[in-house]
């Protein structure tokens, strides 16, 4: 597909990086800063156009007339919206805009219906949604949903003394009497797609696919503490905090926000009448203790400074046993941060990029591919893809044990009319099922690509 990305900031870069991995897109980037364009053109196989997204000339140069999708992710909402409007007028592409000002978010339907935008994404709100999901299920480090929310891949760390320690992957189902599937293991720097004989160890980060119904049972039997958090302490009262607080309040979680700017505190009081707003510096550890950090069942650091967030979470870890969530803007050091074992880290820019790439995939869907959902899991080293099986698919109606599947891939789940089946050797994939595949070979477009070559010619 022909895709134009306007704005080469962090989000733009991440989107380009993810799109380039799929190899089949023709990506053109537009930015006013020639330095940014040069850097991205040197790193990825894309064309750069120097100019403003709102200028007809620059967009024409970028080939908007033949573009399928335009993604506007500059730092300015107004430029993003105007870029999309201009692109809609001179081309026939679908448009996606990043809009972060909450005032505009009320007009989403105006933008999508009357202005013809296909998607509006608000990074803060998207991040808040992910954080809220994690707080509802605190045992998991990350949660990715599939099959319209019926199945989830949960990533968590195997604690010491867990039943999972030293057990073979094939034995888990029998041991715990839960229908789940381990689809990825991260041990040290390795990312493994485990097969039956693989032995899990405590300290491994494992990604497990399960249906919503089995989740509670599984964690209980595996000896992992779970259960909804009852309250949360948020440091930093930015936009993300507002979205998060209102989401959490909807599900009955008490929210306490520490914000050092008193004017902002007044605003927060108006926006979130039910929340406890504390006008205090969240980085002051005495304040945190005074506000009951020791008893908090969850702690979210959302200040604008990465270093502060990391330090806060490290401090909180020594005080409380609650769930910790850390917001990180700079993604380059994620390996180091993961080594700190801070629980869940959230990167709003990554989330935004992932949402957009998912949209692109869905759009490609209508153009011949059959991917329903896609998530990057295992720190981006693997993809979990949900494919729909077509009528004439070569792999339909064959028991899985008779398919020779690549070592780096695993069929994790079959969704048949809403029933989640964790597949075993004699299960078959039938047309119209959706199937979740986990693979470390990135960029698959069709489910048949997970087969060993030459077996189906």
């Amino acid at each position: 597909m022909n895709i134009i990305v306007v704005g080469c900031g962090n989000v733009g870069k991440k989107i380009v990086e993810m799109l380039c991995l799929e190899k089949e897109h023709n990506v053109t980037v537009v930015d006013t800063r020639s330095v940014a364009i040069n850097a991205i053109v040197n790193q990825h196989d894309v064309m750069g156009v120097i100019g403003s997204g709102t200028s007809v000339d620059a967009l024409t140069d970028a080939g908007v007339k033949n573009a399928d999708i335009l993604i506007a992710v500059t730092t300015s909402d107004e430029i993003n919206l105007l870029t999309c409007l201009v692109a809609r007028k001179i081309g026939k592409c679908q448009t996606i805009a990043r809009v972060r000002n909450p005032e505009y978010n009320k007009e989403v339907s105006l933008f999508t219906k009357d202005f013809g935008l296909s998607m509006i994404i608000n990074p803060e709100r998207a991040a808040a949604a992910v954080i809220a999901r994690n707080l509802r299920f605190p045992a998991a480090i990350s949660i990715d949903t599939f099959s319209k929310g019926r199945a989830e891949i949960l990533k968590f760390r195997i604690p010491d003394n867990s039943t999972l320690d030293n057990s073979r992957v094939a034995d888990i189902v029998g041991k715990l009497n839960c229908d789940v599937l381990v689809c990825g293991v991260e041990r040290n720097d390795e990312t493994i797609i485990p097969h039956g004989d693989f032995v899990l160890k405590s300290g491994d980060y494992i990604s497990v696919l399960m249906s919503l119904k089995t989740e509670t049972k599984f964690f209980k039997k595996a000896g992992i503490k779970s259960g909804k958090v009852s309250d949360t302490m948020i440091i930093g009262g930015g936009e993300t905090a507002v979205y998060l607080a209102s989401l959490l309040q909807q599900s009955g979680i008490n929210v306490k926000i520490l914000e050092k700017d008193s004017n902002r505190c007044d605003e927060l009081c108006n926006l979130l009448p039910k929340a406890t707003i504390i006008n205090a510096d969240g980085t002051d550890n005495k304040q945190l203790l005074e506000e009951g950090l020791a008893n908090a069942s969850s702690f979210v650091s959302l200040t604008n400074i990465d270093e502060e967030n990391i330090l806060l979470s490290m401090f909180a870890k020594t005080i409380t046993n609650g769930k910790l969530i850390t917001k990180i803007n700079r993604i380059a050091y994620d390996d180091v941060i993961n080594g700190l074992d801070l629980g869940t880290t959230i990167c709003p820019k990554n989330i935004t990029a992932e949402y957009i790439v998912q949209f692109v995939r869905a759009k490609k869907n209508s153009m011949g591919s059959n991917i329903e959902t896609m998530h990057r899991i295992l720190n981006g080293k693997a993809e979990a893809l949900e494919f729909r099986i077509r009528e004439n698919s070569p792999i339909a109606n064959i028991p899985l044990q008779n398919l020779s599947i690549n070592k780096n891939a695993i069929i994790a789940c079959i969704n048949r009319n809403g029933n989640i089946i964790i597949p075993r050797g004699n299960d078959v994939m039938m047309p119209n099922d959706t199937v979740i595949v986990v693979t470390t070979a990135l960029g698959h477009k069709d489910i048949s690509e997970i087969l060993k070559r030459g077996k189906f010619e």
Partner: protein
Amino acid sequence: MNYKIILHTLGLALIIESAGMLLPVICAICYGDMQDLLIYSLCALLCLAVGATLTIIKPKNKTMYSREGFVIAALTWIVISLFGAIPFWISGYIPSYIDALFETVSGFTTTGASILPDVGALSNAHLLWRSFTHWIGGMGVLVFIMAVIPHDNGSTMYVLRAESPGPSVGKLVPKLKSSAKILYLIYVGLTLIQVIFMLFGKASLFEALTLTFGTAGTGGFALTNASIADYSPYIQKVITVFMILFGIDFSLYYLILTRKISSFFKSEEVRVYILIILISALVISLNTNYLYPNFNTSLRHGFFQVASIITTTGYTTTDFDIWPALSKTILVILMFVGACAGSTGGGIKVSRILILFKSIRREIKLAAHPKATHKITMNAKSVDEGTVRSVCVYFGVFMALFALSVLIISFDNFDPTTNFTAVAATVNNVGPGLSLVGPTRNYAEFSNLSKIVLSLDMLIGRLEIFPILMLFSPRTWRK
């Protein structure tokens, strides 16, 4: 420095070269020349063997930075020249390997300077190989590799930039591979059209192919010492037109193909290029009128020679060494101007000259108004300050190397005109110079040292200086 990826790419280039050698093999079969058949088959096998061995090296780490890109470009050109010279050498036509290397470098860099006293003595297979090196060298070996061989890292842009001529190299379409393919398709298309025109002029297929290769790459190797002088005026005119066409930025042809014809004519560079050709050709035709029977003839020679020199082809229809000083001087100046950026031609490039003049104008303005802000523009778009700076530096380095080369070859004790134009004709990839290296003469009399210096000059000119200079910089090899 990622040595593995460099060696791997060198291997690919050698495989391409061995494929290219199949052309003289076919030619030898057609003409029933067993010796040539043997020589070129063996050389092709040698290239294939070495190339295949090198490509076995699979780089684990595929990241390529600017420095790898430059080194790959420089080494590829040196290696393919070293191998490409072997057929001339072992066949005995060119007994000295240095001479054979000079001839091959001159071929790949599309210079067309020869050390052969009698070109006609070469067998057809050798003549075809010589001309083919022009063709592949014109658009570039690495661009060809990118067009045909799948690669999965985006950073090969550095390689394209190192090999392609011009102050700022961009892509035609988002994908590098598609861009390289489009470039080669346009190149092949134009080449075919010229071959057809040549065949209409009653040229034999062999003549049509070899001369077209020489024109397309703006090279200049012909089939006899007389170059194009013995061919009909029709063929001379066809070659004139196509030399000019191959000297134009290829991305503009893509604009025409995508029906953006107006932007073709809006290109400042092309306009200036055409203008320079028209004015120079007219002045020369008037200036040399007394030498020829009628104005038509002098116009034909004038246009041919101007087109041949500005595009740095180096074909000749007449001995311009006997022309009056004004005409000769114009030709020497045109050598330096060169063709458009993004074409197969050499020289400094019209766009660089334009930027140079515009920055001179800016400096003058700044002298009068020290606080004035002034953006240099091309095609109504402002030029990046970095590009302006690199153009000025390029010009400076170019002149420094030029002076150094003239100095070194002066040890051979030829007259200054010979030394000056020999370096000008090689570093700008033209071919013939004046005096002892004039159109009817050749480079055979130079010492081996001078031949090596001139070969390096040709490579420096084709790769636009920095890739070759980087090879000699310790900074490049430092960890």
